[in-house]
């Protein structure tokens, strides 16, 4: 046992601090993902300090240009500088994507866990989920916007108001998948014996959920999160194209992509960059999610 006991303290002391972070660091994909993600965030928030062109500055004479020194990403058909637009759009898209995803994830996990865990409210919550799944999105959005837009606008001002509204709208309409998936997983996990063991030690139910159920359904949640960011960013663009989103002088990645789709042959850079930005964000979040997942699962092969 000498070796075992000798090795053990050494092992544990360096795992001691920030075990999760250490595990995470050991995951090259996760680190790369995090780096890319941070780069995107940095670029989007600090970029406008370097590339000082106003995103809404119109220079109609310089419309539909390819990449040049003055406009590294080219310009659109009104002469907006695409780089500035992509950067400005990123601020909104990232904020909307992440907060809406978090909201949806929170709602979905909450509903999923509760209905999976507590038999009594399962039926009710799942029928609620069915209802939300069935509700036609567009009329729902129209109603929400009709009811709340002006109130929020007066309380929070036009920009924050619409931001809250959009995040709320996306969150409230996209939690159902997560809920169903989490519920399925919870049903499977809660029948395992370690849950019984936790209960037998007198743990409170909500603690059982937090400490034993949740970590064991994490991988589905992680996938939902990654996919959720992507769909939130896209949904936002769908909203604005339906006239329900941000005013048209607030560029977002999704809308830049939508508006640019028709200009695919004229100025390919118009779609390339926003598309790339969305994909890279989602990809990096995916890798971060993977890394967290792996870090949480003690049994996966760690490389």
């Amino acid at each position, binding site marked *: 046992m000498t070796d075992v006991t000798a090795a053990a303290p050494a092992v*544990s002391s360096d795992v001691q601090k920030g075990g999760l972070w250490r595990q995470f660091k050991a995951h090259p994909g996760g680190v790369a993902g995090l780096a890319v993600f941070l780069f995107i965030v940095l670029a989007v928030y600090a970029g406008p300090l370097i590339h000082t062109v106003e995103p809404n500055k119109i220079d109609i004479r310089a419309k539909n240009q390819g990449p040049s020194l003055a406009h590294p990403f080219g310009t659109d058909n009104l002469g907006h500088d695409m780089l500035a637009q992509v950067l400005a759009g990123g601020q909104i898209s990232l904020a909307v994507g992440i907060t809406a995803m978090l909201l949806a994830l929170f709602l979905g996990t909450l509903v999923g866990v509760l209905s999976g865990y507590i038999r009594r409210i399962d039926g009710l919550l799942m029928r609620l989920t069915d209802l939300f799944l069935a509700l036609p999105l567009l009329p729902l959005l129209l109603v929400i916007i009709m009811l709340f837009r002006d109130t929020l606008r007066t309380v929070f001002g036009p920009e924050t108001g619409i931001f809250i509204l959009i995040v709320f709208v996306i969150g409230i309409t996209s939690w159902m998948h997560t809920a169903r998936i989490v519920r399925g997983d919870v049903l499977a996990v809660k029948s*395992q014996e370690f849950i019984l*063991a936790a209960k037998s030690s007198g743990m409170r139910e909500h603690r059982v959920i937090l400490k*034993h159920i949740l970590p064991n359904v994490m991988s589905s949640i992680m996938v939902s999160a990654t996919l959720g960011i992507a769909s939130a960013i896209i949904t936002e663009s769908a909203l604005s194209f339906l006239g329900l989103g941000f005013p048209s002088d607030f560029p977002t990645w999704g809308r830049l992509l939508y508006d640019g789709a028709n200009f695919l042959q004229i100025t390919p850079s118009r779609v390339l960059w926003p598309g790339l930005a969305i994909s890279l964000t989602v990809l990096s979040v995916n890798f971060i999610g993977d890394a967290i997942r792996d870090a949480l699962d003690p049994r996966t092969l760690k490389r």
Partner: protein
Amino acid sequence: MTLPNAASKNMGDGPVLSVQGLTTSFRISDDWRPVVRNVSFDIAPRETVAIVGESGSGKSVTSLSIMRLLPKFTSRIEGSIRLGGRELLTLGSEEMRKVRGNEISMIFQEPMTSLNPIFPIGKQIAEAITCHRQVSAAEAKAEVIQLLEKVRIPNAKGRFNDYPHQFSGGMRQRVMIAMALASKPRLLIADEPTTALDVTIQGQILDLIKVLQEEEGMSVLFITHDMGVVAEVSDRTIVMFRGDAVETGPTDDIFHRGRHPYTRALLSAVPRLGSMAGHGRPMRFPIIDIASGVMTTPETEVGRAIETRRPPILEVKNLTTRFDIRSGLLGRKSGAVHAVENVSFDLCEGETLSLVGESGCGKSTTGRSITRLVEPTAGSIALDGRDVIRLDRGALRNMRRTIQMVFQDPFASLDPRMKIGDAVMEPFIEHGLGTKAQAREKAADILKRVGLDADMMRRYPHEFSGGQRQRIAIARTLMLDPRVIVADEAVSALDVSIKAQVCNLLLELQQSFNLAYLFISHDMAVVERVSHRVAVMYLGEIVEIGPRQAVFENPQHPYTKKLMAAVPIPDPARRSVKRAISTDEIKSPIRPVGYEPPRRQYREISAGHLVQV
């Protein structure tokens, strides 16, 4: 069916398995840490080799190395493993697959997690047959049922389609055995195959293995803690100690002329049935220093005599728990497993009541019903004066502080994603008994007392050996300072030295805190040591209950008698003595809908010694 099997069967006298210089290491944060070092041994045809050793000494890892079943990226196997002359370590994966299950098969230590939870057990066993042989489904099924009967699963036909979670711990283990035997392998590796079995069934299983050995020329690598079993089955024995094979030799030599201090320590600590004759109270195990083999603490009688006058802390009356059986497309109720039927007993503070009985007779269910982890069908349970069945959620939670349970299957009862340190500390923090630091301190202390290193708190359950996990489970229950502990096979997977240590710890705690134990075990020798009273269960009912001395020295019920007789004796000299293989029909606790159990009458033999008539 593959050629090598047929060819090698008549290869004659060369060893079936030859392990040379086996070293297995695990990667723990970038370091390779060897847990098995330079182990070598041979197994001849028809030979049974036993590996005994300390818990966590690398027995399971050795066997898994032979099967090449360790996780690919976090483990490394060096040395040479030859099966009938063929090197296994360099075999292609497809070739290796054909070896597994066909030429070598294995019984895993923890049957709950080793069975696929979502397939009926019948299917899982049949798979072992169909993946190596071309047989029809019906044939396979017939064969499986036969096997199930051989491992004495009651109502085998009816349980073919049941799922692992519907079986008791011992039954799962028997399913594993059936699975391993299904393909009639040349080499059987059995990792603690009988720990969860009562002695009668254990005897039958051992006989079954012997028969197969004779008929099919099977060799067996037997890993166990039970020296009685070793003495009975093995031709040669390997003693492992902290990763090294410290001694190898014929069983007789090992038993009588062990050279390594650990071997001697191991053997002198073996409890023998009947050694308690004349003692009324539980007795501590002698502690033998494993380095020198010298007894450091002698055995002493502990605990008080049972005071029947005190009001019992736990009072169980007419407890009945049944599991509905649904069948057919409509899912109609077609019967019920009468797992616990009309069980009554009480338990006083500072008292140990042992629950023994046939595997599958409802011991675990009794334990779980008392803690309300399964809802009892009828009966009443009073814990410390409170009616457990009628407790609401909050009160139940508080109640659970008083009564704690060690689960039979420690691996399944540990959250795979939680470090064991957190798992052990959790109940303490949950009940707000102190700060995190206090919890850590206490956990470290308790872990040490059950023979684990506090540094292991950072590791995950799957990184432990079976015995280590069992100790973690015990440690967890102790965190709360409960007043009653339901210990379901709590020490079955421990080697004798550690078993002694843990039992002594339990006795010590009992003495200082007046703890009451409901001790569920198959190990009659341990039961004899630790208990004040014993209850014998059979088919869900208590058939005999009374003071330990009375039950052990004057067993009345036929089943009790049978049980006592079946206990293996750790003396290799007696191994040729054959038990008559029981041919009596296996009784099943499954009853049709509407079945009314008969009213049972009890006869009092002596004070507190009741026997069912």
